[in-house]
């Protein structure tokens, strides 16, 4: 099944809009910004897990996109092009936050983090999927989101994180297990 993004990057720009944006007309830039801001912000928030960081990355992603409109060839929807910029920027931040070695921890230690007493306590009250997502380690959350929601393949995720194919597969499996375990405390696997 082809995943459908929870965010809305499917639209594109018509020729007039694209031309006006390339000429840096504030009104055109504003229209495009307003059209995509929720999608960009949501993607940043899901990948980074922090509102302030998401706001900063949304801002920088739009600046990146508008400054590079000359390189946009319009052979793909503008939304897809913009989404690639957003993902690229967020993953760059995630890569710089910590060594990827944190993802090489044992499954047990990851689950221990996801199932920390305060996390469980919080989840017992809300049983909220978002809380479960945010309980994951940042890079695991990003991998999970890219795979399940943005439709990235294991190959693409491995490439984006400069890791092996098995890294993507095992991270998706462990992440899904961690989320399900948090949502269903008595989940048996």
């Amino acid at each position, binding site marked *: 099944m082809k995943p459908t993004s929870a965010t809305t990057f499917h639209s594109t720009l018509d020729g007039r809009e694209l031309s006006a944006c390339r000429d*840096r007309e504030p009104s055109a830039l504003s229209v495009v910004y307003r059209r995509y801001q929720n999608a960009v912000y949501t993607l940043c928030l899901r990948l980074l897990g922090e509102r302030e960081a998401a*706001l900063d990355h949304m801002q920088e992603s739009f600046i990146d996109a508008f*400054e*590079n409109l000359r390189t946009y060839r319009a052979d793909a929807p503008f939304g897809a092009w913009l989404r690639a910029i957003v993902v*690229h920027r967020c993953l760059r931040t995630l890569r710089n936050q910590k060594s990827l070695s944190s993802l090489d921890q044992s499954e047990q230690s990851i689950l221990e983090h996801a199932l920390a007493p305060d996390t469980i306590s919080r989840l017992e009250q809300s049983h909220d999927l978002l809380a479960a*997502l945010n309980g994951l380690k940042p890079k695991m959350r990003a991998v999970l989101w890219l795979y*399940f929601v943005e439709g990235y393949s294991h190959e693409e995720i491995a490439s984006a*994180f400069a890791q092996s194919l098995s890294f993507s597969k095992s991270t998706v499996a462990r992440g899904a297990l961690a989320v399900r375990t948090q949502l269903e405390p008595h989940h048996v696997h």
Partner: protein
Amino acid sequence: MSTENNTHTSARESAAEHTLRMRLQALPTEAPDVDRLPAVLTALEATPASVTASHVNPRVRVWAGACAAAASLALVLVWKLPTPANSETSVPTAEVLTQRNGSTEQVLKQRSGSTEQLTADAELMALMERSRVAEADFLAARESTRTSIREWENQQLATLALHDLDRQLERHAMETRSSTADPTARRLWQARVQTLDDANQGRLYARVRYVD
């Protein structure tokens, strides 16, 4: 028996993943609680449309602007500063010449009088001393200006190099959806790190000026 268990487990995992996928995709889109549009437009105003300074660290953008201002100031200083009297390539300004010659004529005229010989000699010595001090001040100012220009050029070179590398990285990422997975991306990232390091050490200027 074992095969049957595995089949059941696999089916259960698949169904669970499907459910998780559905739930994740059903999460609502969120709206930012702060409007960053003015900041975006302001940042774009600072960069001409013809310049695609992509993916430059915001701090680099600020630093580049400051360097440009410093360079303008340095050029004004170079233009305004007097040229040293004993420099092989320098030509004294008219004001300096008038001051110097006028004073020298006075001194020579005074020297012609026998009673004021000592006073004239002392004035001549004082004049030469002031000239020497002024010359030293000028040389120090010129060196300082050259240093400022060198630092600015270093930063300018760094900015240009980083622009170029970032554009290559972005293009590469667009084409391959990867950034560090292959040798090309790794080489670009290493070049970027090296460029930043060189810029911080002031080596870009030296590399361009004395090696290339």
